[in-house]
């Protein structure tokens, strides 16, 4: 006989993180049957609802299904009991990335009281860069050159170590969750890891799973816009930094910032920003105007990620516009804010909702290593 030890603390934390409707579930199984994303031989989220009700933490943490869920909300929309399984799964994911995040930093990103502190860290660091590295009188120099205020070298002195930390933290999270998946499901692989990674990459690029969503279908295209817009911007930032270092190290002589609007990298950046912002616009208006049963509840950790992402892109565009119309003070001030948000977005990525990218990709890869029935 197996004895189950219910942990009410775990249930309460799930309820606190958006799964407050959890106890309405009466285990009819409608959710698993309506879900088009779930594998047939291990259907979710009905079982996960039960684990959450009974506070079965170890059943939830190493559970790959929690991450296979893309929160289509077909389950919540059709739930006869109003138990909103989609929101419960989101809450479990939140607890999950808090748990797996490096040094447990994830909990700081899920606590609204700590938001000022989290923003203060990059604000102070970048203020230091400006104080130490800026050229005297950069404000009145024409044309406006942002690196006169924040030299690339000084910025990178902070960014590169911070990003190394973020990457290490992200990897640590991935390894930790992979280990738990293996403990949960065993480590026999049917498919080579490299092939599984490739399948995951293809699936993510096409948004295969999200395309199966029904009631929240318009979100898929919005997410595609945001996804490709974001990666275009990330590529832009990386290319600009590379070009700077190529010049600095004397490898070759390439264009320097500010790049003309016609420069391919600049074009990529501007298109990326517009694409990403339109994606955010659709997602946010849907969340604000539609029933939470259809689009899911919005909690602090959703908003924090969304707002930081939006402000990062919006301040980038605004700083560019003010530079183009030659308004020094707003251009530099907004550029400073932009740098603060870029830091917040990227360095905190493994600990914020941004980490859904890491953990979901890991879960998808793990699933792709084994044959499940179609």
């Amino acid at each position, binding site marked *: 006989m197996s004895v189950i030890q219910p942990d009410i603390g775990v249930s309460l934390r799930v309820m606190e993180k958006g799964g407050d409707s959890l106890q309405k579930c*009466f*285990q*009819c*199984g*409608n*959710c*698993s*049957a*309506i879900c088009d994303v*779930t594998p*047939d*031989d*291990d*259907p979710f989220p*009905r079982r996960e609802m039960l684990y959450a009700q009974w506070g079965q933490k170890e059943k939830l943490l190493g559970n790959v299904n929690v991450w296979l869920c893309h929160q289509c909300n077909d389950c919540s929309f*059709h739930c*006869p*009991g*109003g138990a909103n399984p989609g929101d419960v799964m989101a809450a479990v994911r939140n607890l999950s990335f808090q748990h797996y995040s490096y040094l447990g930093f994830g909990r700081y990103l899920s606590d609204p009281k700590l938001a000022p502190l989290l923003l203060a860290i990059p604000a102070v660091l970048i203020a230091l860069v400006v104080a130490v590295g800026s050229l005297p009188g950069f404000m009145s120099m024409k044309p406006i050159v942002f690196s006169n205020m924040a030299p690339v070298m000084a910025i990178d002195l902070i960014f590169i170590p911070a990003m190394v930390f973020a990457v290490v933290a992200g990897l640590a999270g991935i390894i930790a969750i992979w280990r738990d998946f293996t403990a949960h499901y065993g480590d026999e692989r049917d498919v080579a890891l490299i092939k599984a990674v490739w399948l995951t990459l293809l699936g993510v690029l096409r948004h295969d799973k999200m395309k199966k969503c029904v009631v929240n279908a318009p979100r898929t295209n919005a997410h595609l816009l945001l996804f490709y817009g974001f990666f275009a911007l990330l590529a832009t930032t990386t290319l600009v930094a590379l070009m700077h270092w190529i010049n600095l190290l004397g490898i070759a002589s390439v264009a320097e910032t500010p790049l003309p609007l016609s420069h391919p990298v600049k074009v990529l950046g501007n298109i990326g920003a517009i694409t990403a912002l339109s994606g955010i616009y659709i997602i946010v208006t849907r969340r604000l105007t539609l029933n939470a049963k259809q689009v899911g509840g919005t909690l602090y950790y959703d908003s924090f990620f969304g707002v930081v992402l939006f402000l990062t892109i919006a301040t980038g565009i605004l700083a560019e516009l003010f530079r183009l119309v030659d308004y020094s003070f707003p251009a530099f001030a907004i550029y400073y804010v932009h740098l603060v948000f870029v830091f917040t977005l990227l360095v905190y990525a493994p600990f914020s909702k941004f980490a859904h990218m890491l953990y979901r990709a890991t879960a998808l890869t793990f699933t792709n290593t084994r044959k499940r029935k179609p």
Partner: protein
Amino acid sequence: MSGSLLVIGGGIAGMTSALEAAECGLKVHLVEKDFSLGGRVLRMNRYFPKLCPPACGVEINYRRLRSNPDVEVLTNSEVVSISGVRGEFSVVVETSPRYVNARCTACGDCEKVCPVKGKDPHNYGLSEITAIRAPHKMAMPMRYAIDMDVCEGESCGKCVTACKYGAVDFAMKPVRTTLVVGSVIYATGWKPYDAGKIENLGYGKIANVVTNVEMERLAAPDGPNGGAIMDKPVKKVAFVQCAGSRDENHLPYCSSVCCMASLKQATYVRERYPDSEVYIFYIDLRASGKYQLFQDKLMGDSNVHFIKGKVAKVEDGEHGQAVVVAEDILGGEKIRVAVDLVVLATGMEPVTTRDERLPDRDEYGFISANQGRNGIHSVGVAKSPVDVTTTIRDATGSVVKALCL
């Protein structure tokens, strides 16, 4: 007027209330909005758990009604308003014309010449019937009536000529009657929940998806296909429990009868087609008390498969089949079962009346039971979703309250 009672609804609840009260000495007015008494029970193939046809029980009630001078039956009539207080309600009843007078002998000559047909409500629209017709084989009064939504009117007039007795009368007008009664019993009953509202279950969109009330007709010997269920031998049937019941998007309450109704209907399939397979998808089976024995018997049949898991989707399958999608909770897998026939166990919705002043209804439209002190009573499914046995007991018991006024 004390000593008199109005019963609204001539189904099993209303007939029972009227008879019990009249046999205790009350003067009863029994008002039925259809052309005939009998209500929903007469559309059932069989009752559970004894699997006897409802006709015999209804027949006994008809005989009691015919021999009791204290019950005045008003068919094709609706209560328009109720005013006054306990002991002295003034009730306005409107009787719509049936365009066939009391001279009708139900010989059927008119029916033979009637050129137009409409959907037969007795068969839930599964078959067609002429505009002039007997409501059904067990009609009381056994008198023809014309469905004016279908009839072409006096200009056609074929039935007028065909009738040897001069019974067809297009000049009939609605008649209003005022009754004075001491108390009122609402026996207004139910209607099946509109299965078309349950989007994912394919009703009206996918072939061979029917509701449980339609299944009663399909299995009834006097139904649209002589009780054969389908026009080909039935191999696989899926019963979808809680189709719209216990669902906050539809009927939030448990309709209480659908589990037993599906178990009963499973016997229709198994008896008629010994090789058939029946799948019953349920959240939990609510066959309480002695009904458990009925369930146990079916569970002993290896061709009846009980699957714990609510059906979330019905999809089009190959070869005219329908595919039901559910999580087999006890089996641990999501399954898709292709079947010839899907029966949606839709729930019961209370019927509302034209008179909106009375009585108090709960959030779902059921008439609260605790209005007895006002001289207003509710019985059967008008009060809560219950089966026939419970309805009859409730109706009999409620008469005591009406007697006390």
